[in-house]
């Protein structure tokens, strides 16, 4: 069953961010939500994750078990990378498996350090592994490859592609190359009425 978004609207004061936005998101596939900055991509994904309420419209077919890479990393800063991943995992997932996933995208060193001491790119990759290893029926990713250098980005995209086969994944991005590299459906969001002509 696909996720059906019907005429979703959201405003912040007089600022209309989503205006009767509709779309179908297929099940067990990766869908990219693309569009210019400020078109409401993050607002849409936040509504889908249940972090924000829509003003009107409806979303049906959303699975309960969710996992996410947020726009910010949202890691527990005083804990190390493995602890951050373990926080959201089922007990059956052993530390060795977490280490192996982190290593797959080049995170081998400094794993004992609190994540606050890691570079921005390293923290981003920890957030990606956390989303992949959490038990979920749908994964939301808001610009998951932000701040990664080309080489690491390629490796991380390959990791996401390999670990999300036959899963429902929604990725918000500006970069068409990311969609091409991972593959999947593309939904393009337009500019808000208020921003047109600026």
């Amino acid at each position: 069953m696909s996720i059906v978004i019907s005429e979703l609207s959201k405003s912040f004061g007089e600022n209309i961010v989503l205006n009767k936005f509709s779309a179908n998101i297929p099940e067990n596939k990766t869908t990219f939500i693309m569009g210019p900055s400020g078109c409401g991509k993050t607002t849409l994904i936040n509504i889908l994750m249940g972090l924000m309420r829509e003003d009107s419209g409806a979303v049906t077919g959303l699975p309960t078990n969710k996992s996410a890479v947020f726009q910010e990393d949202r890691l527990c800063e005083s804990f190390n990378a493995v602890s951050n991943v373990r926080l959201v995992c089922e007990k059956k997932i052993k530390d060795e498996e977490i280490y192996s996933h982190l290593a797959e995208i080049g995170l081998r060193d400094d794993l004992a350090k609190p994540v606050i001491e890691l570079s921005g790119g390293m923290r981003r990759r920890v957030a990606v592994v956390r989303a992949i290893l959490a038990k979920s029926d749908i994964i939301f990713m808001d610009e998951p490859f932000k701040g990664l250098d080309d080489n690491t980005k390629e490796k991380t995209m390959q990791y996401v592609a390999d670990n999300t086969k036959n899963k429902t994944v929604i990725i918000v991005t500006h970069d068409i190359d990311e969609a091409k590299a991972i593959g999947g459906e593309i939904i393009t969001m337009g500019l808000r009425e208020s921003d047109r002509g600026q």
Partner: protein
Amino acid sequence: MISTTSNKNRIEKLASVAFALFVWQISAMLVGESLLLVTPIAVVKRLFSLFTEADFFTSIGYSFLHIVAGFLSGLVIGSLMAAIAGKFHLAEIMFWPFIATIKSVPVASFIILCLIWLSKGNLSSFISFLMVLPIIYSNILQGIKSTDKKLLEMADVFRVGLLRRIIFIYLPQLKPYLISACSVAMGLAWKSGIAAEVIGITNGSIGEKLYEAKIYYTTADLFAWTLIIVVLSISFEKLFLYIIKKFFARLERL
């Protein structure tokens, strides 16, 4: 480099203490009346003679146990109340008049009231508890309120359970609030607990010794027991904060 700076600080502190003792000794010699101002040398002599008295350690043990029990009760109950108030706004409103009363009523009024309500034996524990409670409650509640909302949203999305939320999100964010609250509350627990013992003339306590010093005008005893209280208070504060910091260090290695 750090070690050199730390040694320098230590030397500076020792020099300032030596200077203060020197000023005290000169002042006492100028006053020339041990009833008004006793010399530090006389205090040290009295301190050594106190060690040999039969009830010295029992008095220390009695006051220490009662005040620490009051402090720990305040810590536990204040934290629980803050957790409830953080979760339910109605509870925060309901707690407010009690906390505001405890904060604003002079400690002497509470001591006299408690002398009517309680036995003398529990007086210092209860007064220490009362003084610690609002500090712990207010600080922990402030810490809970300033918990990173984005991390809580993350926990909601991933359906993280309560225990894991407490360990991974709340406790690390509460750490600075807890340490600062404990540091302030511990000093206050000792001051108010001893004051309660003095006013209540609690048998076998340090407060009773201070009271006797007042009755018999033994200024050297007063200074010696005060020195003991300061040493006990600072030692317990350092030990307790060390334990808390170790606890958080272990928590972060989970």
